[in-house]
């Protein structure tokens, strides 16, 4: 009886993970690739992140949204970001994210790109960026908002 229940639970969990995978795997792989800059490694991280999702499927209240999955993935990728691959964060050299889709990023200024990449790809807090750039947190938030607005406009065109 226990085995049957266990099987049913596993089946449900797999279905849930599969549904998340179908909806978001391509987006997540694109996101991870922009962090690790290596296709093979990005695929390995994709598998490992979805394994973690499956592990914590019942504990986390998954709403199935991309933003929730992206934040979860970012947290897992911080291990990578903390390692030698990301040694030059302080001076900005580590933030040369390979924006293969220039229409979205091409119109951003260097500072906007830096702030957006630091937050979106490398999980830096507004407070940490404000210390790095010697600017107020409010101005960092404003720049982030501007970057977002420019990218939204670029995406609509």
């Amino acid at each position: 009886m226990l085995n049957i229940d266990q099987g049913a639970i596993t089946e449900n969990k797999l279905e849930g993970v599969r549904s998340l995978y179908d909806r978001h795997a391509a987006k997540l792989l694109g996101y991870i690739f922009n962090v690790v800059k290596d296709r093979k490694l990005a695929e390995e991280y994709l598998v490992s992140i979805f394994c973690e999702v499956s592990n914590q499927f019942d504990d986390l209240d998954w709403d199935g949204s991309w933003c929730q999955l992206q934040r979860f993935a970012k947290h897992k990728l911080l291990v990578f970001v903390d390692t030698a691959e990301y040694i030059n964060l302080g001076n900005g050299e580590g933030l040369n994210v390979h924006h293969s889709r220039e229409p979205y990023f091409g119109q951003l200024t260097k500072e906007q790109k830096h702030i957006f990449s630091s937050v979106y790809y490398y999980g830096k807090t507004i407070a940490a960026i404000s210390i790095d750039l010697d600017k107020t947190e409010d101005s960092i938030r404003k720049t982030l908002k501007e970057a977002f607005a420019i990218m939204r406009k670029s995406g609509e065109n």
Partner: protein
Amino acid sequence: MKIKEYIESGILEAYVLGSASEAETQELMYLKELHPQIQSALYHLEVDIERMAEYMAIKPPPDIWFKLENDINELVKRPAAEQLSVSSNPRKERGSRRKEYIDVDSKSSHMRVHKIWRWILIAIFILGKIFLGFAIFFYLENRQIKEEISNLKSELKQLKTEIKR
């Protein structure tokens, strides 16, 4: 509080991108319930970020799902205590990150090795084949020489008998 100013402050963007502090997140969650404008702005930002992610999407190879399915099934088979436990709070400060990783002492029959071993094993295999080739070559050559020596010996004997006559 002026809601328009709050929306314009960039806190919503910081939250959607996962860099808002705990206090900012709590405040936002509270205000979101009170003000539909904030809820709507947040929803639109989430749609935007998803659209951007779609634009940068890379289709995973078809075998990735099967690999993932196998890994998940393997994880399910393991007792719960052996499973990897990772903190579920995605918004912690960078300084506290190192403490979040737990040493895993699993009884899994599988082992992860460094990728360099793939090349070392390939080199060992190729060298093994080369040595085997040399061994066969020298064995055949040695056998041929022995045959030639025995032929020469028999010819020598024949010559000796002819000379004696």
